[in-house]
């Protein structure tokens, strides 16, 4: 593995994704708060919007949304890149030299996404909570400090841990699936498009299916 490749991939899977991950999570947090406030208001339980937004983001939504974004941008890019290399005979050239493809092509990609996803998730969750905060500030009567305290009291750390672990698995899955799809692709320009699409679809469906499995497991284990 070349350090340069790893750095490029880390950069693309991390800092480069901050804007879109931030925007989407902010809006999700805002929407949750809005819907939650309207409903909770009927029970005079508006303050629990902090729990709603916090737990939903930390436990489920931020991990899933971030993973879906990453499947779309990074998973698709990996599959396209690898299938292009296949079409250009770059992979063949590696094979003939006896340079391991796993180390040179796959490892930087998989490592980058697996490492960056949990960090993006944490960032996304915090932004999501902030989105909820912004909406709540304008719709309900609570001080910023009060909102913050209620969030800290209502959302346990293990929710974050759960999301963090899930995000790691989602990232690894997206990267592995994309690499595999790329390597299995045909060699024409059209095949690159097909590979990219397939990687995204497999990534998104896989993430949601995995999340369901995690939910069942968490329930069984009482997390």
């Amino acid at each position: 593995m070349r350090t340069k490749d790893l750095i490029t991939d880390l950069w693309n899977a991390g800092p480069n994704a901050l804007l879109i991950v931030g925007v989407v999570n902010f809006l999700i947090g805002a929407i949750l708060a809005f819907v939650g406030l309207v409903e909770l208001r009927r029970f005079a339980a508006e303050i629990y919007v902090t729990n709603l937004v916090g737990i939903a983001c930390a436990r489920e939504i931020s991990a899933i949304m971030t993973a879906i974004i990453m499947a779309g941008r990074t998973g698709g890019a990996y599959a396209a890149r690898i299938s292009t290399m296949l079409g250009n005979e770059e992979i063949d050239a590696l094979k003939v030299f006896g340079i391991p493809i796993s180390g040179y092509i796959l490892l930087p990609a998989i490592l980058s996404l697996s490492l960056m996803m949990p960090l993006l998730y944490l960032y996304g969750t915090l932004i999501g909570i902030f989105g909820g905060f912004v909406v709540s500030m304008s719709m309900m009567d609570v001080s910023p400090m009060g909102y913050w305290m209620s969030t800290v009291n209502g959302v346990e750390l293990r929710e974050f841990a759960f999301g963090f672990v899930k995000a790691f698995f989602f990232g690894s899955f997206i990267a592995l699936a994309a690499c595999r799809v790329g390597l299995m692709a045909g060699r024409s320009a059209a095949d690159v498009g097909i590979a990219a699409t397939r990687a995204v679809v497999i990534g998104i469906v896989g993430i949601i299916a995995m999340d369901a499995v995690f939910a069942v497991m968490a329930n069984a284990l009482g997390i």
Partner: protein
Amino acid sequence: MPQSDTLISVRDVELSFGPKIIQQNVSFDLKRGSIFAVMGGSGCGKSTLLKSMIGLLPPTTGQILVGGEDYWAQNEHRRTQINHRFGVLFQSGALWSSMTVGENVALPLEMFTTQPPDVVRKLVEVKLGLVGMEQAIDLYPSEISGGMRKRAGLARAIALDPDILFFDEPSAGLDPITSARLDDLILTLRDGLGATIVIVSHELPSLFAIADDGIFLDARTHRPIAHGSPRTLRDNSSIPEVMAFMNRSSTIPTTDETKADRHV
């Protein structure tokens, strides 16, 4: 000839992609130190034959012996070891697009030798100098022309000083002067390093000048139809397809298929 003179022996090999047979009954011996030409019309399976010799496409039947070892009967680990004797120039160049030209040539050196970085850098410059590409050392493959990519691919192929070289159309896309210089380089590689060279080429003058053995693959019958050096084939062959090819003639009656090819 004595057995030890034969470096690679291709024995009754059949090549196919799924049900589609590309070539069958391919047999020839590659003598140590020879320059072997693989000839034939476009699409007849020349690149495919090379692929089966460098470990990318197992033949459906038949054997390929490298130094007496049945190449495809070995496990992957052993095949990779044998591959270290090979230097391959792909038809498309196949440079690694995420690396500069210099890094492309350097990677095999870094992987398979223990040279310190400054020596690697020197070696890279020397190899690129051989193909007249030293000024492109820091450019990416996307920033150079097709002919330059070919030459960079050639420099990469000879990076580890392999003793068996496979060149798929090395002179395609090169101007006549560079192409002539390439012929000299190929002869130097043979005479200087004692390399054995398999070359796919349509450059007749260059083939006549450098190749001393060869095989002619036919696209229609999916079989080799002539063996021998390009010079001999030019002067002595009585097979219409071979004659037409060697004399760049479009008038010799051949099949409809080849005619159609020629006019595309």
